[in-house]
């Protein structure tokens, strides 16, 4: 009986140890694989490490889209701060002036080098983060 109990306790600790290991591995992976989301103002005020991938969300400023070969540059704004964004590739169909955009990439010396550009299915889309900030600003 005692032997049985000892074995059960042992099993319990093995399971506990393994699940703790698993969960900590998952959490560790989570933290290194997160993409933090910034608005232009937040991005400039935050200290972002070089080579740290982030997401930048805002509105594409009217008249700022410039094409050169396959390269595209435009300005993302949150109506307070503006950040120039550089991207090499085909922009999505819903990418246009005066509409919401999310760019995934790297911050470097005042500008943003995008690896991917997202524009959502809905043509009236605006990043929800920006919408809530609009509400705060009473816009």
């Amino acid at each position: 009986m005692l032997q049985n109990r000892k074995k059960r306790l042992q099993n319990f600790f093995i399971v506990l140890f393994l699940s703790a290991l698993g969960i900590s591995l998952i959490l560790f992976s989570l933290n290194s694989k997160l993409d933090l989301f910034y608005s232009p103002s937040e991005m400039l005020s935050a200290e972002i490490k070089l080579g740290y991938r982030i997401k930048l969300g805002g509105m594409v400023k009217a008249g700022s889209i410039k094409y050169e070969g396959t390269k595209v540059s435009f300005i993302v704004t949150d109506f307070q701060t503006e950040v120039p964004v550089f991207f090499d590739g085909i922009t999505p169909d819903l990418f246009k002036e005066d509409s919401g955009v999310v760019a995934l990439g790297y911050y470097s010396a005042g500008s943003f080098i995008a690896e991917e550009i997202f524009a959502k299915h809905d043509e009236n889309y605006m990043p929800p983060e920006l919408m809530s900030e609009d509400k705060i600003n009473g816009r």
Partner: protein
Amino acid sequence: MVGEIAHFLSIASALTLTLVLIFNIFFSFSDSHSNQLILSCKLFNHACFLIFLSFGLYIYLAVTDDFSISYIANHSNSQLPIFYKITAIWSAHEGSMFLWIVFLTLWSILFVNSLSSKHPLKKGTMLMLTFIILGFLLFLLITSNPFERILPFGALEGADINPVLQDPALAIHPPLLYLGYVGFVISFSFITAYLFYGDLHYPWEQDIKDWSFVAWIFLTIGITLGSWWAYYELGWGGYWFWDPVENVALMPWLAATAFMHSLFASSKSNILKTWTLFLGIMIFVLSLFGAFIVRSGIIDSVHSFANDPQRGLYLLGFSGLITLISLGIFAYRLPGMQSSKLIVTGSKESFLSMNNILMLTAIFSIFLGVTYPLILESFNGVKVSIGPPYYNTIFSPLILLTSIFIMISVEALWQRGMQVRTLFFAVAPTFLLSTLSLFLIWYFVQIFSLLAYVGIYSGLLIIISYFLKAASNLKNNSYLNKGSFVAHVGLGLLFFSVSMNSILSYQKNVNLFLGDQLFINESVSEFTFLDLQNIKAPNHEIVLAKISILHDGKPIYLNPEKRKYFARGQITSETAIHATPLKDTYLTIGDQLENGSWTFSLQINYFVKWIWFSSALMVAGILMTIFKKKIL
């Protein structure tokens, strides 16, 4: 008028279902009064038919362009072909919820009527199903009424369906996916009925085995179709984006896969009983969680419907209630379910349970990936997103472990341990051949990526072990489980082709004028912009580019399009794909620049066809398992 009749029929159905519940809960006679059961079943059937009738009328409304119905006016258009007028019904929240309920009803009525009236679990199953249908029907009628009129005057013209949804694959993707999602309501209700009933020796597995398999097939086809659609329609060249809504479909799929496996073990050797019951409950709970994520607007995704807190609250409350009831009764019965047998180390079921645990780990990791940004934002106010890198890192060790266990279990026997000698002789050739193949691949490809190679190796382990087993069984003329063979080879092929795709595929963006020719690389030596045409279609206009490509010495003609839809002013791209067994040449047209030149994005995607094929193999394997019993 027809709209009001359809609306009234749904309400009548909800009332009938309420009647069934009240009749059975408050006026429960003893079990010998089977008249009560017969009457309840009749009422239940009538309620189901009322829903079907109501949906039939709704299809009629959509086809006849009744734009006084607000939902139809917002999502359909008189210029649409009839096929898309019907599919427009499930292009947004209200209508797709209606379809969800219709399928829920369909599965329920089929299952309840397949049970004989003497079946001890018939009453409980029917009541649980009644409760679930009623809950969702009320959700539809209260928070998202598809019958709402625009008063006093209807719209003259509809606002049109979202153009990216005007596509045959997408038209049938939601129905198949819903059929899969909802199909697990059968195993869920049956299991809760079994737990309420209390006779724990009842062999419940046999009655729902085939139903769960069929639901799994629908879920698999639904997910694959969605992925296929995303690949050729969105023009990003990807087939899986680890989008929250894709993830919430993958969770029930993993749970269902684990459930199917442990159902085998449970019915074969009477072990893993509690575990199987738990999984059966979890599949439907995860489906409900998915419905909540998609329909509450809590997560921002390409799939999510408009934001409405009331809907989210109702769904959360109702799903929570169902979860609480089912897990509550499960916990109540748990002490009485001690299974007498222990799992023998090294037996087939021991490896099967290991993989069950791994699948649960995968579900948990996805769940964390979906909810972590929400948790972090509500506590810290930090906005984050979790993308493919997280899932790739988590999944590759899980996939490797799973594959190793699958490989060993191929040679293992039910309820019997395995000797180290047998293990060695069974596993060594597979290890050797897989490692050799991996080196060959590395030699030819000359690209290294740890995650991708883990995936390739996992795929090879599964495929090679099953082929070796099949070969030896054929030689000895012994029995081979063909369904399992086909399905597992499909899984191995999936791991293999997904990983190969990730290392071999590449993308090139080009910019050129009409008539220009470019050199891209040794493989794509000529890229010629032949012609540009403007074409008018009934509800959109098309800019069509004609491109010829000299790919590996063979000329290919590709015609990518850009479409502008009149009703919404929305622009979409139609990808041109030239497919060979090994790779797809995938071309999308970009924008015209100020100087008149055009941009194109050329992608060479390897092994994409194989991904769809492997999913077809898995479905085929399960189909063989279902029909094997019928034939023999």
